[in-house]
């Protein structure tokens, strides 16, 4: 067994255990942290597949940005665990039967002959000067440019929707309006009162 195989089994074992943990632990914060662990080990697996850029992007984007934000949200929300678990045991038998059938069906197809090493041989490893970052960049801006641009539009939709759903114009807010402040004239603020001079006693 080569060093790469050993690494693969270590990463896979951690990945499977942490993924199971995500859906079984009680505390949502632990669950989110386990998801971070799952992402990191997944990035390790991608490195073994020679997808270096994607592995680093996964750590930077998902672990570094998305999951940290997610953790903040989970910590700030007061999640009532008992209410979330309400009705779990009531529906458990039904859900378990459906899940078992699906797992059995999917493992019949996914395991064994259709996706074995004979059907899908190990890809040839690339030369040392091969850059998959360059390949990725080339593909995104040529062959996949249409889908890439559309994905950008999708993010724009998400932005518009998020602003539309959360922005509120409050009538009673006390924040200053800079453009009004700049336009202010002397007459608006200052009143010159002419008074007759009074004699000294």
């Amino acid at each position, binding site marked *: 067994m080569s060093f790469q195989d050993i690494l693969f089994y270590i990463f896979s074992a951690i990945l499977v255990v942490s993924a199971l943990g995500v859906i079984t632990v009680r505390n949502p914060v632990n669950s989110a942290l386990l998801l971070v662990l799952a992402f990191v080990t997944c990035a390790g697996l991608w490195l073994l597949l020679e997808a270096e850029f994607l592995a680093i992007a996964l750590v930077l984007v998902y672990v570094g940005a998305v999951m940290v934000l997610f953790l903040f949200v989970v910590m700030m929300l007061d999640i009532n665990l008992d209410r979330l678990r309400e009705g779990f045991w009531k529906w458990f038998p039904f859900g378990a039967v459906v899940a078992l059938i699906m797992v059995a069906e999917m493992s019949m197809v996914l395991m064994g002959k259709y996706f074995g090493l004979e059907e899908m041989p190990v890809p040839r490893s690339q030369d040392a000067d091969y850059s998959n970052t360059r390949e990725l960049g080339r593909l995104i801006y040529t062959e996949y440019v*249409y889908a890439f641009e559309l994905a950008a539009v999708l993010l724009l939709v998400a932005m518009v*929707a998020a602003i539309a*759903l959360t922005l509120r114009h409050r009538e009673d807010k006390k924040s200053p309006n800079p453009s009004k402040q700049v336009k202010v004239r002397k007459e608006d603020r200052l009143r010159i009162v002419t008074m007759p001079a009074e004699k000294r006693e």
Partner: protein
Amino acid sequence: MNFIPPDFAPASSEIFMLIMVCVVMLADLTAGDNRRYVAYLLTQVTLLGCAVLTFVSFSTEVKQTFYGMYVDDAMADILKLMVYGTVSAVLVYSHSYISDRGLLKGEFFSLILFATLGMMVMISASHFLTLYIGLELLSLSLYALVALRRDSIVATEAAMKFFVLGALASGFLLYGMSMVYGATGTLHVSQLAQIIQSEASSKEVLVVGLVFIVAGISFKLSAAPFHMWAPDVYQGAPTAITLFIGSAPKFAAFGFVMRLLIEGLGEMVSDWQGMLVILAILSMAVGNIAAIAQTNIKRMLAYSTISHMGFLLLGFISADSNGYSSALFYVIAYVLMTLGTFAMIMLLCRSGFEAENINDFKGLSKRNSWYAFVTLLLMLSLAGIPPMIGFYAKFSVLQAVVNAGYIWLAVAAVLFSLIGAFYYLRIIKLMYFDEPENTEVLTPNNDVKILLSANGFAVLALGIFPQALMSLSLYAIQNSM
């Protein structure tokens, strides 16, 4: 490294649409609160411009660009023109409704245009990636539109259900697509058909992928047993948004099924035919029987949609160009009827009052005999009674099913549509034989008045002379297969 730039010309309408969405957003930002008419007019101009671009570049042959990710053919152009017309009509119908309820914001228009762009992408997609991104573009905009009325608890709940179930359906679809990719090694719709034909891929993996894809599609079509979201969303969303969800996306869904199941996985027809038979018969049963018990008109129409989707699936089951063109005819007829019906519901609404109960239709003929007559035409058409367009649509779909040899399925479909006739005729009874509960005079704007009358007339006229529309549908299918 040599780079050949793709041909942008076939996608000119999509590019124009994207530019104009940004223009609408910026124009609305600068226009200020009291001039929302700017965004409305710009949106209509955008749809008109897209229609002109699509019409001018109407292609009689199949053109691919963007490295095989985008396809332009007669079916795509015809479906897109239908989508523009429908969205434009939706905006006319819902203008006064949304301005009464404070929803007349720039985001309303930009989200509707984004959704329209998503539909256009779906209709012209020839790659799994673009099919999926188009679908997400449409769905995300729809989720936001449903939730746009933030102070309404029902709308928020509906949006939540819509979002969670929609995400689940997308997951199903993606999983199925990944299976198909695993078996064939391609995501291009046209290459997929060739690879499956050459039998170089394992059939079992493909079938598992197909099951997930069909499940995902039926979620999006709201076909039973994946229909649970439809009644809640139809009821909870503001009526203008319900009208939008119930109309134009059906064209996109038709295009999606055509690209994915027929063009891509057409070689597996014997596998998906059986699945569609189950979906169709369940949809017709659930839709028609559950609708009888409803007292909320929007909920009733949601169940009616489910049953109509069952009929639509009948057209695909026959798996020949006659069947597909009758399915296209059915979609056009269905959208025409839905537009009119929801426009009538919005007509009965006032500011501060939602017409949601079927009792709101009571005595409509005494309040306004013309609109009662238009509703009569629409209800007869939905029930499938000659000489309305709904009858001919059902007739042609059933003919295709009988030709394919599924006579028992046609008999069942007729029986279910007989059951369904009850709840459409109940509305007619309420309108003509009951006393009105309020006697307020209906005062629609002139544009709504003209469009609604034209809509009712089209339902009647296209039912008497269906040949032109039928040959258009047949032309669309034959020139793109």
